[in-house]
């Protein structure tokens, strides 16, 4: 039983990170109907920027958690700028182009960002210095570190804040209006371009936080880390129902837990036929099953045809 609890904890940590990244995909999709494939690279840039900043801050002798927070506070505006620039350069000129065009530029931007990061940060793995206490606490027979508790709590707080922003503020209303119908929103006095820019900036800020979480939890970061993470988060967004905030959160957590449980039990369940390295296959298999029975995802509503 304690092993089961441990796997759930592992899954929650992983899932919280997926959920934060998935929110970035789902917000952009909800408003623009565009899949921003470069989002995973924004996470990577967040992680590497934070690492560089942390490397500069360490000699100052500040306590570890303060240094990490400092790295995060530098990574967030950098990622916001990157997100804003991506939208401005790669997507806005194609706003009225056929759907395939922005999809291709999204992939292009992803490759460009990855290569730029490779030039800037090199090809090596960068390690996260041991600034946070790594000694695990015992919880119902399972081990959990302070960092993992912080990751789960921060992700939950950010998600709650996002929901509040979207449902309770003026800007959130503008976002929802733009998602519903950009042309009508514009007629109602919503500055659609600003709302879209803001969506990218917001998603990128969450991506920066997720990037720092990944780097801190797995202690490494490198230029190619964004690709698989982005793909998983996108999967999580689709699993939950793309375009739906709650769906992205649910999808992320679910995907993390499914992966952990799959890695832990798939060998026993299949009598050793499939090993733990098939956890991704299992995760995608669950995705296919969900989409067969609920094509719009777990929490996705029927998407109205856009005029």
């Amino acid at each position, binding site marked *: 039983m304690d*092993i089961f609890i*441990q*796997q759930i904890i*592992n*899954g929650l*940590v*992983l899932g919280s990170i997926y959920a934060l990244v998935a929110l970035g995909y789902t917000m952009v999709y909800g408003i623009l109907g565009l899949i921003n494939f470069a989002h995973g690279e924004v996470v990577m840039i967040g992680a590497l920027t934070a690492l560089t900043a942390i490397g500069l801050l360490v000699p100052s002798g500040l306590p570890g958690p303060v240094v990490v927070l400092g790295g995060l506070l530098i990574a967030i505006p950098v990622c916001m700028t990157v997100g804003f620039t991506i939208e401005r350069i790669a997507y806005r000129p194609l706003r009225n182009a056929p759907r395939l065009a922005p999809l291709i530029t999204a992939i292009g931007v992803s490759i460009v960002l990855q290569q730029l990061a*490779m030039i800037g940060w090199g*090809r*090596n*793995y960068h*390690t996260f*210095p*041991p600034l946070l206490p*790594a000694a*695990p606490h*015992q919880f119902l027979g399972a*081990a959990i*570190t302070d960092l993992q508790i912080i990751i789960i709590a921060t992700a939950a707080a950010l998600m709650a804040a996002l929901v509040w922003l979207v449902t309770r503020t003026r800007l959130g209303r503008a976002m929802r209006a733009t998602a519903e119908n950009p042309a009508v929103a514009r007629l109602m006095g919503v500055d659609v371009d600003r709302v879209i820019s803001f969506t990218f900036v917001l998603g990128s800020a969450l991506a920066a936080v997720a990037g720092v979480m990944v780097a801190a939890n*797995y*202690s*490494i970061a*490198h230029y*190619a*880390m964004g690709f*698989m993470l982005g793909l998983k988060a996108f999967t999580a967004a689709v699993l939950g129902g793309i375009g739906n905030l709650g769906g992205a959160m649910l999808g992320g957590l679910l995907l993390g837990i499914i*992966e*952990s*449980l*799959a*890695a*832990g039990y798939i*060998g026993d369940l299949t009598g050793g036929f499939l*090993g*733990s*390295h*098939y*956890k991704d296959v299992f995760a995608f298999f669950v995705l296919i099953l969900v989409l067969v029975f609920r094509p719009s995802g777990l929490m996705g509503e029927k998407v109205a045809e856009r005029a």
Partner: protein
Amino acid sequence: MTLITPSRPLSALVALSACLLAACGPKEEAAVPAATADAGEATITIRLGHVAPLTGPQAHLGKDNENGARLAIDDLNAEKILIGGKVAKFELLGEDDQADPRQGTTVAQKLADARVHAVIGHLNSGTTIPASRIYHDAGIVQVSPSATNPTYTRQGYKTAFRVFADDVQQGSVLGSFATSKLGAKKIAIIDDRTAYGQGLADEFEKAAKAAGAEVVTREYTTDKETDFAAILTKVKSTKPDLVFYGGMDTQAGPMARQLKTLGISAPMLFGDGACTVEFHKLAGEGAEGHYCSLPGVPLDQMAGGTAFRDRYKAKYNTDIQLYAPYAYDAVRVVAEAMKQVGSTETAKFLPALAALNYPGLSAQIQFDEKGDIKDGAVTLYQAKGGAWSALETMGGKPNN
């Protein structure tokens, strides 16, 4: 009709200019493989291919191999050795296989088409084995400095050599070390499902079982993964007293760190792929106390090993990761064989290479009938204070 006619003279012009350009092309290319040319006819150019992952998670190891090979090339060019009465000028064609078997064969075909005189590489077993067939078919000698999967030299290809002990030997040394020296009775085994990781883990499992240890679980990951929490949780539930991982440092480092986070106190044991400087960087405090094995003797015990380390550091401003001395030797043995027979033709220098007895940097290099190094030793190390410190050297008996 009038739409078509005017364009005809233009297309003829285009075709003509294309012919002119094409005519220039082959002339330039023809000059490359032949003996060139500055100092008259007394030089001969030898082009060696080098393949290793230069991008991706193992780029640091690939660059290390290439640096080792380049150092040998520089030395050879400075020595101005004579091959068939001509001064030999060595060139290295560095290629990137991304540690990916598919990319490995693509790059191998590229080098075969470029008609290189020999290939140093690849780094990984997973890329070396499929590439070896291409080199064999093209009649190109291949010397791997680091591929340890036994299959590589057991396919019957006369062109395949390695200057590094294989996994059969390493696995058996690791197995006896785990059971007799560490006293492990319950062992958990993890591998990364690559030709190298899986091969080494299989050999280790055989040796450990033969020595009476129980393998409590066998878990798998990939050579791109960074999250091992789930499989380590499974490992934890089996309460092993040793965790073996067959794979590279990029996974081994984070794995060691996550092992500590999960509160598993059993030590880990790795093969050569994790026996690197990088491992300590990646594992941080989690590195302490774990073990690894590396074919060959420690650099300090190699004749000229410390001098090599200093020269490497001076030239590349970084520390040797792992296989650089072996890549250096791989280049040197090829050059030595060519020098002995005075020819760069595979048919002539291949027999000389097979029969070579050469005092290399890493060892006295002699190949057995398969192309494996004879008398390959294996050294065991333990992580202490942020570095690998040598415990003991085992083996050294003929490798067959």
